[in-house]
């Protein structure tokens, strides 16, 4: 019965991810006074791209071809093991915070290698920038994760979520709030949203993620786009369930799962809308100011760890 939870979760994330991107674009468009293409547009784009033939640039190796698959696969593993809809799952032992972070990094590195593999100037530039951001974001994730797991005594995501449900007051402790701020900055950086990266630009001076995937076409491009939507959903979902753990099913019964699905969709949609609305009022940071932002989030991580020990 508990496998049902995993299946529901994976299917839900696959269906919801492009819609989330669509909703975020729609919110942005409305706030900027445009009509917008509708929430279903990313799915229509993906369907079109999946029918087209993929092209590889001359001289690129298997790294280029394999990267989209690795990216999608690693993100799907996270979607399967993390407690998005239900905390009971046969894959519970894998749902470790550090394992999930490592899987995220695996996808990032695969795409960066593909960017280098094309040998174009933009690919290398994008890869180097992406690695810079990832290297600066990684210590923050580990520290914030440490602060969250210190209270629970385990780095298992399901354990952290269940503990959050049992003691709702703990969400308002300084350690949790600081970790929430630190992780929010990191989620924005890892998902490549403003102010770290602008997902809707192809201006060579500013793009990070888009620079790496410039050479992809057809089915491969569809996979990359789908994977980045899935990553965004996974990151927002993880943030939501770590800090607002209500509604996540703790049993594998059908009503609990249904409630979990509804709660997850609501939480992710609200977070996505808030993120998109925030982006309207924000300009992209200069690349050399990004370390400042990430150093700030690192400091929040340090504060979270120290206050989880001293102000507990």
């Amino acid at each position: 019965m508990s496998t049902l939870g995993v299946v529901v979760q994976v299917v839900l994330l696959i269906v919801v991810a492009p819609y989330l991107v669509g909703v975020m674009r729609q919110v942005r468009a409305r706030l900027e006074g445009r009509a917008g293409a509708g929430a279903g547009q990313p799915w229509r784009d993906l369907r079109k791209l999946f029918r087209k033939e993929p092209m590889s640039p001359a001289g690129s190796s298997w790294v280029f071809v394999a990267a989209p698959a690795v990216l999608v696969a690693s993100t799907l593993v996270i979607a399967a093991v993390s407690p998005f809809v239900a905390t009971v799952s046969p894959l519970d032992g894998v749902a470790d915070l550090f394992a999930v972070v490592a899987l995220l990094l695996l996808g990032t590195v695969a795409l960066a290698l593909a960017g280098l593999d094309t040998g174009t100037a933009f690919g290398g530039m994008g890869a180097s920038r992406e690695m810079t951001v990832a290297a600066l974001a990684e210590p923050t994730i580990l520290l914030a994760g440490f602060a969250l797991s210190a209270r629970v005594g385990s780095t298992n995501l399901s354990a952290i979520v269940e503990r959050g449900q049992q003691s709702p007051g703990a969400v308002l402790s300084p350690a949790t709030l600081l970790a929430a701020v630190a992780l929010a900055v990191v989620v924005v950086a890892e998902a490549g949203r403003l102010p770290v990266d602008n997902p809707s630009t192809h201006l060579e001076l500013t793009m990070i993620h888009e620079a790496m995937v410039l050479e992809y076409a057809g089915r491969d491009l569809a996979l990359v786009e789908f994977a980045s939507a899935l990553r965004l959903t996974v990151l927002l979902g993880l943030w939501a369930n770590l800090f607002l753990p209500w509604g996540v099913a703790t049993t594998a019964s059908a009503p609990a799962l249904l409630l979990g699905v509804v709660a997850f969709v609501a939480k992710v949609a609200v977070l996505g809308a808030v993120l998109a609305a925030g982006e309207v009022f924000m300009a992209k940071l200069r690349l050399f100011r990004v370390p400042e932002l990430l150093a700030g989030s690192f400091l929040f991580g340090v504060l979270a760890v120290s206050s989880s020990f001293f102000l507990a």
Partner: protein
Amino acid sequence: MTQLLYLICGGLLLSSVMVLWRRELSAIVRLLVVQGVLLGALALVLAGRLDSVELVVVAIGVVALKAVLVPRILRRVLRDGNEARETEPLVNVTASIVAAAFLILLAYAASRPLVRLSPSAETQAVPVGLAMVLLGFFVLVTRRRALSQIVGFLLLDNGIAATAFLITGGVPGIVELAVSLDVLLVVLVLQVLTARLRTTFGGTDIDELRELHD
């Protein structure tokens, strides 16, 4: 109640750190307002815990001074000058944020004996006050604009006030009054000094103050 106390202390620490992070001086003044309100809230919570009417009066005074009066003076300084940003701190922002992390850990380490003397909910939070004092010193040492200097001084004073509240439940009312008036006077004097600095040198970079003139 303890949860609320720690939440306020977390907020105090966060606002002090944000002073190092932000460059716009107007944003820094806004952070000081937030810090003044939080300090007043801290006094109110302690008044509830210790059943003291005097602390309620002190809380009102703290909010009036630190969240209303002093920020108003700072805004006037800001409006008269043409410097909206802390352009060249002696230590760049990234490094000062990392330094802040070390200062906070130092505060925790240094206040361990204090906490051990009487381990209660309030003394557990004393490191926050000490960290604010250290961060205030850090701002004083590394920032170059005259307004940032005032901000560093205020941060230092807020830290001392927070520590006093947390250790002893506030100093006697007359001392609190004297200290508050002192702070107000210092800010006013620094405001005049900043204006003089600007008319003499055209800017408020304190590195210009190398030698004495008559």
